[in-house]
């Protein structure tokens, strides 16, 4: 079952290739943990020309990651203890805590336990902007999905979604318009 709402891949004259690129797309999005944030995705490729276009719509913006999202925050003697469950952003968490409370104010008695010497709870501190990280991963994913030989690339990204075009030839406005027109047709179908 697809985790995205819509996944459509169209490659004229290459039905097998279209089906396989659908699998590749889903595998890569899953590997990078991106499928939760993308609602719809359309791929159109004309191998005769050749070019490869991907258009996607986001599911909504991601809220910034706060200390309370990373684990349990409890009051202890001499401050607050953070029992970290999400270690992926541990380095960001330490940087934020050091900046706010100084190195001497943050103790790490165990790998996943931090004790902050403060009287007010640090749970509302912003650790990182996940949105930025997501967009970096997305650009990486688009590069991986696209056939490697398509070295000329153009990427448009806004609040709602993204449009990625790759080609072996120089990307000219006419090619961009054509790719967008094909994607629009697929989205309207």
């Amino acid at each position, binding site marked *: 079952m697809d985790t995205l709402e819509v996944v459509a891949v169209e490659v004229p*004259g290459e039905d*097998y*290739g279209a089906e*396989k690129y659908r699998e590749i797309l889903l*595998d890569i999005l899953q590997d990078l943990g991106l499928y939760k944030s993308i609602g719809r995705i359309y791929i159109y490729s004309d*191998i005769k020309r050749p070019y490869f276009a991907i258009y996607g719509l986001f599911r909504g913006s991601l809220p910034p990651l706060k200390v309370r999202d990373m684990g349990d925050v409890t009051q202890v003697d001499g401050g607050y203890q953070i029992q970290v469950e999400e270690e992926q952003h541990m380095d960001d968490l330490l940087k934020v805590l050091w900046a706010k409370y100084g190195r001497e104010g943050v103790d790490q008695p165990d790998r996943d336990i931090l004790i902050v010497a403060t009287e007010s709870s640090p749970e509302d501190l912003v650790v990182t902007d996940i949105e930025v990280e997501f967009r970096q991963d997305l650009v990486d994913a688009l590069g991986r999905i696209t*056939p490697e030989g398509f070295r000329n690339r153009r990427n448009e990204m806004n609040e709602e979604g993204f449009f990625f075009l790759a080609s072996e030839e120089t990307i000219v406005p006419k090619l961009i318009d054509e790719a967008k027109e094909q994607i629009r047709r697929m989205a309207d179908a």
Partner: protein
Amino acid sequence: MLEPVMFKGGVYKHDLVLELVEDLGGYVLQRNVTQAEIILLLLIPSNDMTTLESLVKELRGELTRAPLAGTEVAVVTPTLAIHHLPHVACDVAEYLRRFGTKSNMIGMARGVGKKIAQINEFEMDLINEHDAAVFLFGNFIDCILGKEKLYRNIEVPVIVTGGPEIPKEDLPYAFEYVSTVGRQAHRSRKASEIASLDKIVAAVGRALDGMRKEIEMDPLTTSPPRVMNAVREQIPDIERSFSPLPIALNLNGCRIKLPYDEYSREVEKIAFDEGVTLAEIARITPSKMKNYIVVRILPMSETGFVF
């Protein structure tokens, strides 16, 4: 006739297998020890196979036929980027190894794209040092047909793989085309995917059988395993080579993994009981792979004798 087989079993008492192989006049091509397990690639005279089988049964080991043993196969991808590696390329290379061949992965410098793909002379020479090559292509018919220029001038048999079905007539320079092995972003686990890998092994086997038949028409002056044994006996430094397989066998010779500049004279002087040296019965040249030594045994038509 020598039969290629693979022995898998415990390290305990495996010396008995080695001794028996020597007594029967066979050859040990490769010896891999992994903790308490050992894998041996052997060449055994077919008439004596039952003797070895009964010993292996006694040792609770496993003996399987390794049809590709004593050969080297190149697994070629358009580049070494994440688009082509690791999944399909590693699966194919690893699967070929299970059937006894020595598979080498080669990523081309500029093999990508439909119009811009190209192969250079060095890559071509390197691939030609192998017994066969497997070119791994993608999922679009148009691209697979367009990349024919990459393997058109390769002298060894080339097995092309790709996703879609393409009639063999459309790929005249390929020895065979194996479909359903195109680009993918996951490991081959499904039964259908493993079946596709089996098809590649079968195609490589047919290509090598064809080459063996060609060699039989004008036999080599001596067999590559015999050269291998002579190198092991007369150049002790080969045992100190860091390579996991210090002597890689080919159908018409072998690759000795020692620096050409330092050891080529010693290799030329290797003597056989029949009173000839290796330089008299083989061409000894530098390899394109890390300046190793390539030995190509001359056929009977050039030397006038066989031993």
